[in-house]
């Protein structure tokens, strides 16, 4: 069974701090996606990582895909209150063989206090 484990489950930090959240699996994924979900809204895609070892940057957010494509991390530099939200990782079931059947992690709930 493919599972994505995210850690930490909760993270509360002050504005300006850096943080890293993790998404781990014992299974290989063809790609991993990171979403942000705000209360009462659907997940919004931030990035997709595809190649082992790949690093992608989105302003203050840096995403990395593990070399073995079993894990990913999201690093936020100088966090701001606007970064507050639930960060979800997701990957295609069955190594990309399923049409839109994504497996999600449980998420990291981030709170950035001013």
């Amino acid at each position, binding site marked *: 069974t493919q599972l994505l484990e995210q850690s930490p489950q909760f993270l509360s930090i002050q504005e300006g701090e850096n943080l890293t959240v993790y998404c781990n699996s014992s299974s290989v994924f063809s790609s991993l996606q990171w979403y942000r979900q705000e209360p009462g809204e659907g997940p919004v895609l931030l990035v997709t990582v595809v190649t082992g070892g790949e690093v992608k940057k989105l302003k203050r957010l840096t995403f990395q895909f593990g070399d073995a494509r079993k894990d990913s991390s999201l690093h936020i530099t100088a966090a701001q209150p606007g970064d507050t939200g639930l960060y979800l990782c997701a990957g295609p079931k069955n190594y990309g063989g399923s*049409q839109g059947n994504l497996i999600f992690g449980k998420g990291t709930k981030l709170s950035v206090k001013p």
Partner: protein
Amino acid sequence: EPEVTQTPSHQVTQMGQEVILRCVPISNHLYFYWYRQILGQKVEFLVSFYNNEISEKSEIFDDQFSVERPDGSNFTLKIRSTKLEDSAMYFCASSPYPGHLVSSPLHFGNGTRLTVT
């Protein structure tokens, strides 16, 4: 930016009743999906739909569930006889091409919160 819209935002129903959750996918998208998220739990895949047929369904999507594209714009999820454990947030999503392609990410709506009493 085009978005997926879902109605209603909140639906309360009694156990045993039928509910229909409605979605308007992004207009040029061809692949449609339903996911659900029980409070405090993971987002879970229910079904994918393409060319008026179910492409894939999960073990959650049993005989009480059905999907339909009744016209060129709507995509619906029907739950025939609701149970207490069906209470969840139901998300519709769409993509222009098959959703496992990197070039074809899923666009999610804001969900319908279904409460079964």
